[in-house]
């Protein structure tokens, strides 16, 4: 087996983990657990099938188990955030931090779907397989996530993209 197969996916696993849990170190721990599990279960992966989707499935399982077991503090704190609209600051312009804050206020099952679609650009079919949920559920979560984000962002155009580090 060529270990490069998995290694080349690490940057994208990190991107998804970061977006999912927010904190950089918690995210890298999630990636590490995912990789360990992937190596241990590699014999279950069918060559020729979508390795990336398979890795996202493993990450999803690790994430759900960890969230259930340890309950990420961040996760908890964020889920308890009241659903108030983000106030536009600094001259009516929303900033990327606001987008991040709104993302974090989503329930994690909706956040997973919206990130796999928007950032990882998986097809709905791939998301359905990766998360082990029917495609109808993918669509309803996506729909709710996007609508909630739209409302929380106040529906106003983001005029300036201030890129944060």
């Amino acid at each position: 087996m060529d270990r490069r197969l998995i290694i080349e996916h690490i940057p994208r696993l990190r991107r998804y983990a970061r977006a999912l849990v927010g904190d950089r170190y918690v995210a890298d721990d999630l990636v590490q657990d995912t990789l360990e599990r992937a190596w241990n279960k590699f014999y279950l992966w069918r060559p020729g099938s979508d390795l990336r989707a398979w890795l996202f499935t493993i990450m999803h399982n690790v994430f759900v188990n960890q969230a259930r077991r340890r309950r990420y503090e961040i996760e908890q704190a964020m889920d308890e955030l009241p659903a108030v609209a983000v106030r536009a600051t600094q001259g009516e312009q929303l900033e990327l931090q606001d987008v991040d804050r709104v993302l974090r206020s989503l329930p994690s099952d909706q956040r997973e779907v919206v990130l796999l679609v928007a950032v990882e650009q998986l097809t709905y079919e791939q998301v359905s397989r990766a998360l082990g949920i029917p495609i109808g559920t993918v669509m309803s979560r996506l729909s709710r996530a996007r609508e909630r984000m739209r409302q929380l962002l106040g529906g106003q155009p983001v005029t300036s993209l201030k890129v944060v580090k």
Partner: protein
Amino acid sequence: MKALDETDVHTYVDGGLPESAKAELDARLRAHPEDAERVRAYTEQNALLRSLYNPVLDEPVPAALLAVHPRAWRRYAVAAGTFALGIGLGWLVRGEFVTQIVVPVSIARLAATAHAVYAPEVRHPVEVSAKEEDHLVGWLSKRLGTTLKAPKLAPLGYELVGGRLLSGPQGPVAQFMYQDARGQRLTLYVSRQRGEPRDTAFRFSQEDRVSVFYWVDGNYGYALSGEMKRDQLLQVAEVVYKQLNP
């Protein structure tokens, strides 16, 4: 005019709508500013989320993450435990570690094949029926060269139908068959394993429609097969495992 299809809206935003459908939706959006606004906002969300997280791709990958594989390999090697002595990691890295996983995987496949052959059998599912359980177990034990046990699965609704002797790559194989009130069948496949005695963890394999839980205990491999969902089979497999490994 029919209502706007919500899936189409998202597919449009995510760029998956075919040209013809796209043109049609564009026309509808022109007529419905509030939907057009939604599409604009969702498209913007995609762009914003990408600008937020794409920079992670350019960060150097922490060494700790790149170092995950060798540790996991060693751990896997220990777990598999095949040829536990005398095998260096170098040997593994050369790619021959494939033989390590072929052994346990193949028992799953053999067991699933035997299940697929005999479980649908109406008139002759077994050679020796459960009416002669003592004889059956004694006979198969003698042929496999060990003391076999037919697990008691009645509390789970499965009665022993009987068993048969099969041939496998390592010689004789025992197959016990169970059945529930609805005729759902399970088979337990027991075969001698090649190489040093070892123990493996409980594993799962999906062989087409047949689900298999399997493990190796000493010189013998065990595989429980059934055409059912993993979780359903797992309940039985755990009981079987506990009875055989008290």
